């Protein structure tokens, strides 16, 4: 049963400076379906719209970000809604209690002049009423369950290491046992040892709370480690989506092949080829398939039409004319 269903989502950054309108198509027609108790990974190069997708899923839409089209349905059994049609106050209440968020740069997300305790208080107090000592007890219990020292509560953000700050944001995101946790590059700014700890922490939380985790990162190693399913994003669209082992064994889209082919393997010292060129600017996408200028198998058709994301095998979808040769009428189930 799917908990989150995204339909033809288009969120653009539309700005107008001195009468010149600029549209950045950060998320451009994304379809997604995520099931209960699933860890879903979104991979892609920098600037392909991953973080914007997360922001939109969270319902944090602030200008210049504009939702042009699409729906995001959440179905939590007792609560069903399209987050894009909620008013600001309703979506404020949904956030954190049902859908929480682990930010990209934990270095600057904590208020520098308040103790960690106060940050916990303001985040929790916004959603539930607590008795005087209840909140403190809950926070301490949660921190020790995650294996964090409760002394961090007395600290100011600048007194904590980067890894500890990221763990604090993870503890903040998971304390209300939300149904969905959106993690935006949760380990990117950390060194490898701390990365491992952070990913392990996320996995423990998921095992215990059985929530959906949507994890965005460009690090394929992390995806291989933690995700059940992976979607590859390119220029604002999902171009391939499959179960983790499937995508690593049989990548179908040329871009995915490059992405996975560039990963080092132990014992294999051959030269790794990465995709030539760099991703197109989202404000000025090429016609047809946005990957065609970099694709070695480019055909005439790729320059004119955009391939739709179609089922190839069970739970393996790909948007490429190489794979979907006949099936190109643009329909999607």
């Amino acid at each position: 049963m799917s908990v989150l269903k995204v339909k033809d989502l288009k969120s653009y950054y539309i700005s107008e400076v001195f009468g010149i309108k600029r549209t950045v198509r950060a998320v451009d027609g994304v379809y997604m379906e995520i099931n209960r108790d699933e860890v879903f990974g979104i991979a892609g190069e920098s600037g392909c719209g991953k973080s914007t997708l997360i922001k939109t899923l969270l319902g944090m839409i602030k200008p210049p970000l504009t939702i042009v089209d699409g729906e995001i349905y959440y179905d939590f059994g007792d609560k069903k809604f399209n987050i894009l049609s909620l008013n600001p106050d309703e979506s404020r209440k949904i956030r954190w209690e049902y859908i929480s968020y682990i930010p990209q740069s934990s270095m600057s997300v904590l208020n520098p002049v308040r103790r960690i305790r106060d940050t916990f208080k303001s985040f929790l107090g916004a959603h539930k009423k607590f008795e005087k000592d209840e909140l403190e007890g809950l926070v301490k219990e949660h921190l020790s369950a995650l294996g964090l020292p409760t002394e961090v509560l007395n600290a100011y953000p600048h007194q904590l290491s980067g890894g500890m700050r990221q763990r604090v944001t993870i503890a903040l995101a998971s304390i209300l046992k939300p149904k969905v946790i959106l993690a935006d590059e949760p380990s990117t700014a950390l060194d490898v040892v701390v990365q491992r700890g952070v990913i392990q922490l996320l996995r423990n939380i998921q095992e215990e709370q059985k929530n959906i985790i949507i994890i965005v990162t460009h690090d394929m190693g992390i995806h291989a480690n933690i995700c059940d399913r992976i979607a590859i994003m390119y220029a604002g669209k999902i171009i391939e989506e499959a179960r983790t082992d499937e995508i690593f064994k049989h990548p179908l889209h040329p871009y995915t092949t490059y992405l996975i082919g560039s990963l080092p393997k132990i014992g294999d010292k051959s030269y790794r080829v990465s995709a030539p060129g760099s991703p197109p600017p989202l404000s000025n996408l090429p016609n047809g398939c946005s990957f065609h200028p970099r694709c070695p198998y480019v055909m005439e058709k790729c320059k004119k039409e955009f391939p739709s994301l179609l089922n190839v095998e069970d739970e393996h979808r790909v948007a490429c004319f190489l794979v979907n040769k006949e099936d190109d009428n643009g329909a999607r189930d």
Partner: protein
Amino acid sequence: MTFFKRYLLPRIIQYLVVIFIGTTVVFVVPRLMPTDPIQQTIERVTMQGTYIDPDAVEELKETLKELYGLKGTLFEQYAIFWKRLFRGDFGPSFAQFPTPVMELISISLPWTTILLLLTTLLSWVIGNILGGLAGYFSHYRWARILEGIAMFIRPIPYYIVALGLLILFAFIFPIFPVVGGASIGSEFKLSWNLIIDIIEHAFLPALSLIIVGTSTWFITMRLIVSNIVTEDYVSYAQSGGVSNKEIVFHYVIRNGLLPQITGLALSLGQIFSGALITEQVFSYPGIGTLLYRSISTGDYNLMMGITILSIIGIATGVLIIDIVYPLFDPRIRYE
């Protein structure tokens, strides 16, 4: 103990050095001026047509030299100057001889202190809160209106605002008195009538200072906040569903206040130099009026007294901020 040794002591030493240098400059500068206060005094006396015989003039010169602290070499004068200063004695006023400068200042100081302390604090608090709110809710109409008002007031020269208020509320609509700090002939005994009288007289000067002060603080805070709202910790708190009220006060204004606190300390220190234009426009009997009078009559001792007082005021303000700043910004700690 380490706090005292490594944080407080260096700052107190710095404080004393600043005051010492400032005071020394105040001592030296008038002595480099081409005018001679003793000659001036004697001229003032002889100008009135009195004949004084040369021996008496010589005697008078000596007496005046001693009184003014101008006896001996520059170094001796300097030593005497400090000796007097430690006793809180700035010497006699030249223009209102022989009233001590200290007495003149202590009459004017309470007027200025109460007026400026109140208006500075009030406009700081109001300006920062309104500026913070308008900066955070910048897309609302009321925020734009507030900003428009502040932008309109800010460039008007202060004396125009002050005169405008005076003409409007004391002349066209005579609600408030035109001049002074209290009605002429009032007895200075603590009574309700006196307090109301003083408030009535102080109302217009205070209003003019608050209008201009508030809009200045408002605009600075509004600018600071427009940067803070783009900070990650603000959008993170918003994504966490933290209420707007909490974000405005604990996240936005709280962080925006840090630079404003420094500004507050400096303007509190400036209280002791008075509000020259305000006091002139409203004929308010404060330090500003005194300073103006001392300049126009060439009363060096009085000038020096007021200047030293304001040096001490600003230096003390900075010292206090240095000491209490870590309370506001935990990133700054005494090591």
